[in-house]
């Protein structure tokens, strides 16, 4: 058959937990697998569980100096190393050395980065490039495997909104964002969902490495569009909260005129965009300081060509 993309076997796979030290599902799963890796073992694959930000994990805090999941910029990775650098920048350089270098042929094939959110996002998969057919096929496989439960795919490919993640060191980076879960809390159901998604992901890799050809497919994704901040006064103080009608409605349509924020004295502020959008990361605790109440997305269908191993 024509038009089958060939990829090398995915031999080196990493599973990152604790990129944010208070997102407990990933921390717990990775620590578990460091002690006993049987569950993540797949024939012909080296699967390496790894705690990316041990100091933040120890303090059960998102980060110590700066957000590790924003630290993998070219500037940071190429800066001369030194103890005076923020802890997370030093860490990014170390991680790049072990699992990268980012952009080179030596980089790890796949990295799964495990995250939790206070938003009601369910089990979200995060895709960084619309042209990564290997990842698209994997996500298609996962979505089919967990159906009828849903697994939305968030595409963060955007000139301004894309950020330099820990997983971006690999050839095929995949984010797993599971919520809602408060920071610092471990909920069994959230933990188990993450575990199941990862199981299917590793199954896909094993099948791929065994030579299975995956036929062309399409994947419905939500492409990130616009960051929406809280309304603020002239001093920068937040003056409204996510409206009760929007709270917990991640991935549901938000139409022009729909309630969006509610001021402290009860006034409703409405969405004034041109068309329907699909908000996500609604009321994520860590994003108050990043000036983000939620992010809007637009639905898109991506096509993935057939793939098989070389």
């Amino acid at each position, binding site marked *: 058959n024509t038009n089958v993309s060939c990829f090398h076997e995915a031999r080196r796979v990493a599973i990152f937990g604790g990129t944010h030290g208070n997102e407990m599902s990933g921390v717990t799963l990775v620590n578990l697998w460091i002690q006993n890796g049987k569950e993540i073992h797949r024939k012909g694959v080296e699967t390496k569980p790894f705690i990316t930000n041990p100091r933040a994990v120890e303090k*059960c805090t998102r*980060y110590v100096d700066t957000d590790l999941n924003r630290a993998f910029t070219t500037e940071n990775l190429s800066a001369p190393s030194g103890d005076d650098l923020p802890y997370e920048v030093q860490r990014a350089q170390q991680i790049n050395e072990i699992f990268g270098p980012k952009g080179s042929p030596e980089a790890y094939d796949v990295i799964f980065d495990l995250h939790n959110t206070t938003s009601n996002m369910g089990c979200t998969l995060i895709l960084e490039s619309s042209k990564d057919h290997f990842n698209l096929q994997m996500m298609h496989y996962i979505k089919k495997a967990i159906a009828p439960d849903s697994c939305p795919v968030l595409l963060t490919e955007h000139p301004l909104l894309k950020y330099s993640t820990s997983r971006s060191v690999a050839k095929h980076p995949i984010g797993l964002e599971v919520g809602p879960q408060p920071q*610092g*809390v471990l909920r*069994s159901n959230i933990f188990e969902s993450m575990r199941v998604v990862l199981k299917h992901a590793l199954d896909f890799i094993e099948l791929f490495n065994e030579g299975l050809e995956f036929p062309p497919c399409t994947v419905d994704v939500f492409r990130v569009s616009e960051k929406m901040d809280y309304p603020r006064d002239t001093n920068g103080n937040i003056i409204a909260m996510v409206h*009760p009608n929007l709270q917990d409605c991640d991935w549901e349509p938000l139409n022009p005129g729909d309630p969006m924020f*509610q001021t402290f004295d009860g006034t409703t502020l409405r969405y004034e965009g041109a068309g329907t959008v699909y908000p996500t990361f609604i009321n994520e605790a860590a994003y*108050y*300081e990043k*000036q983000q109440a939620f992010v809007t997305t637009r639905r898109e269908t991506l096509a993935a060509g057939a793939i098989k191993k070389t």
Partner: protein
Amino acid sequence: MEGREVVLPTVSRVALCGGTHGNELSGVYLVRERLKRKRKVEEEDHISVVTVMSNPRAVQQCRRYTETDLNRCFTHATLSGPVTDKTPYEIVRSQELNTLLGPKGSPEAMDLVCDLHNTTANMGLCLIAYSDCDWISLHIYRYLQRQMSDIPVRFIHFDLPLNEAYSLDSVGKHGFAIEIGPQAHGVVRSNILSTMQEGVQHMLEWVHLFNSGTQFEGGKVDVYTMVKNVDYPRDFETHGITAAIHPQLQDRDFCLLRPNDPVFQTFSGETLKYKGTEPLYPFFINECAYYEKGIALSLARQRSVGIPSIRSEREGEQGKRKSSADEMEEEETIKGEMEGEGYQKLMEYGEESDSLNGQHN
């Protein structure tokens, strides 16, 4: 109990505190809004309300505390301990708050201290206090139950003597925490904030009615008395937890836990059951801040408590009722303190523009 009427002094001086834990945002926002509207000290007939941001530094950083948990710093021992430049911030602060709202145990203390909190546990609205026979608190509880139909309202009693009582609300002559969940720390949910605003409003309504001479009839109320805490199973060497709250217990605060009911699920899928012999009511199930305190859940007994009919003292009724001249003098003193440096520091973080919630550490 019914038929006996208890006469009590008016509750004329009320303190409303938020941000005792800097990342419990309903109280932070409620206090901030009140302070913004210049309601540092509100005086209507019969009642003055002082609004306080308890831990401004922790609020700035959006953390529970900076060095030590402020809401454990109000025991008699901590309040009377010496202060050096090595003393943790929260202990310095607890003594400051004790000066302003107390001193704890003295006649000068606020009549009522109400401290606003959130929890990640599914607890609805709870009043938490150290006494199960403080008629003011119990009547406020019953009033809230009757006025608020959208959310369960409960009363939790920690049986500790006053000098061992460790939280901010123990500084007032009467006091309780209002704890509302579930809400993740560092997040404001509009419905939870509305509930807290409603609860505070009804509380102040009750106080106003009480001070105006309204008689509140006696009756019975249900009270949960704390019995014990249960920790997570932990790894012997690392002390890390080896199980999570079982899915059948998660979010089931105040649903009776019987012997052999599931409590934990280990990471290898095994169910650990409740080994106690007495059925008890769980609460604070999976509260984030309690992992470090070794508490996975707390357990309580429920019982019915009889409360008498109560009303406030009429003028001239009892010898110790203040003359109106004394009362005015006292209010001037409070105002003076309010404008003083100490109070300004209290108000600072409420009024200056803290545009972001600060670094999440």
